[in-house]
């Protein structure tokens, strides 16, 4: 007997992501969780700049397209005046960890009661695949044509671990969309993060390893395999700070 499954109405629209892009899966999971938590008519999104900007045409909720990198600050303002609304930032790795590292870091530092979803595809997707702060050592991008040299560009940043280790955030996890099992686990992380916000426990973040098949020069399937076999070695999947383990 099949179980009924339908894309939530707040995201049931065509969007302009590339074939095999993970964004569509991730935003669908967020909306499924909102629906299941009874919050789908009680949510404001602060959307980043980059491929996440494509949500503007698909997401049927309150939403603001923030300046590049500033979603952490914008969401802070939203949550402070509308504490009973769910406030979610939706950003890529370039938006949240490069140009927006200060705003992302400080929202976590304040333990702001918002949920941050970052889509990590190890490059700047929208502008055509430049190096980002999560680009893997040796990875070729349009601005690291000989492969990323970490000696001069720094090493890929692991943001959820950073805020989990340094600040008393409510919840920090990293998931992936690279297989059905990973997708199911990711949904659990996202739900947990949203519940932390509902319960006013503070800052929650879920980073998602997501394929960028076009800029990686791979088929969608190869891109999923690359996440599973290579990216998860450096970016471990799991929960780094679990609110349920705190007093």
């Amino acid at each position: 007997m099949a179980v009924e499954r339908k894309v939530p109405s707040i995201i049931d629209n065509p969007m302009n992501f590339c074939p095999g892009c993970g964004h569509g899966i991730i935003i669908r999971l967020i909306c499924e969780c909102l629906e299941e938590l009874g919050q789908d008519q009680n949510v404001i999104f602060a959307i980043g700049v980059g491929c996440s900007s494509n949500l503007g045409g698909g997401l049927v909720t309150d939403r603001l397209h923030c300046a590049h990198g500033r979603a952490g600050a914008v969401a802070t303002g939203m949550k402070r005046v509308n504490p009973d609304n769910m406030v979610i930032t939706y950003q890529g790795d370039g938006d949240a960890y490069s140009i927006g590292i200060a705003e992302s870091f400080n929202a976590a530092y304040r333990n702001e009661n918002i949920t941050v979803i970052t889509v990590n595809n190890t490059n700047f997707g929208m502008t055509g695949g430049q190096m980002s702060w999560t680009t893997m050592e040796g990875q070729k991008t349009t601005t690291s044509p000989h492969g990323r040299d970490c000696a001069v560009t720094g090493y890929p940043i692991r943001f959820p671990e950073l805020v989990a280790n340094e600040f008393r955030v409510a919840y920090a996890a990293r998931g992936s969309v690279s297989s059905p099992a990973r997708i199911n686990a990711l949904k659990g992380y996202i739900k947990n993060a949203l519940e932390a916000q509902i319960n006013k426990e503070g800052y929650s973040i879920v980073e998602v390893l997501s394929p960028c098949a076009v800029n990686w020069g791979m088929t969608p399937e190869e891109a999923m395999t690359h996440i599973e076999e290579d990216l998860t070695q450096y970016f471990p999947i799991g929960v780094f700070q679990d609110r349920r383990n705190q007093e």
Partner: protein
Amino acid sequence: MAEMMKGNIAIAEAAVRAGVRLYAGYPITPSTEIMEYLSGRLPEVGGAFIQAESELAGINMVIGGASCGVRALTASSGPGISLKQEGISILSDEELSAVVINVVRYGNGLGTLYSSQCDYNRETRGGGNGDYRCIVLCPSSIQEAVEQISLAYELAEKYRVVSVLMTEGALGQMMEPVDLPDFVEPKRNPWGFDGKYTYKKIGIFDRDSMKESVLLKEKYAAIKENEQRWESEGVEDADYVFVSYGLPGRSTLGAVRQLRDEGFRVGLIRPITAWPFPEKAFAEINPGVKGIITVEANATGQLVDDAALAIKKNSSANIPAYALTYVYGVPPIKSIKADFKKILNGEIREVY
């Protein structure tokens, strides 16, 4: 009963009374007392105060509050206002209303702590990317400033723009007797986010900039037509008309009155809105006027550009426009009078 109050404190309390319920910003002299005061005061009225990690974050928190329809405020000075330009451009693009207070200090880059009017061009032209204007109010007294806070929000909400209260370092730091305005009931703008998607938006990539530009042009034309504010004195029979705003506008008024007593036919236009610039005030000027003279606290002369354009619009004669620039501080009456006489004897040449 008027009470002696420091400018920044009076302005901050007036903001609370005007219904401001979110402040976010970063300290910078000479604006800091505004945020210091609000850090204690806003929580008392159920408002949100956030000490941001930067001015950039501060203005973006204001964007968050404004997008939810709340009266949101930030204040800064000099390079702090530079950092806020990105957010002011975003607010203008999203047609969100908010108020930014610039307690102007002198200098490029980091600048100095001296009171000045050097940010005139930036405030009146919109300092961020794109094609927008902010409504700019420039008070010449603490009393005028506290009355303009409410007005700044009303105009911002009427036209869905950002209003800038452009004060000066000295106005923020000095004390004067002031009657504070009454409390207004804080309200939510109906277009604010409430999580229920009652305020529809179109997709980021679905916007039609050509269509939007028509409405934008109409909006700014309406502001220009309806919202020019100024005070003038003695312009109908004047040989020379001074143009000056803020604290220099106040000392220029003193100079004009003394010069009148000495037999010189001079007048004053004191812009209360720097944008829209009060062009209409220039229609009242004596058609035989011999010159327009701006008095400005900056180095290069900025107000003079607008004054020259305004006299060009209102007179077919080629009226010379002079600029008396005093760099920083508030020019004393005697300096303005002495420099006026240099204009008369040809020592100071016209700019246009």
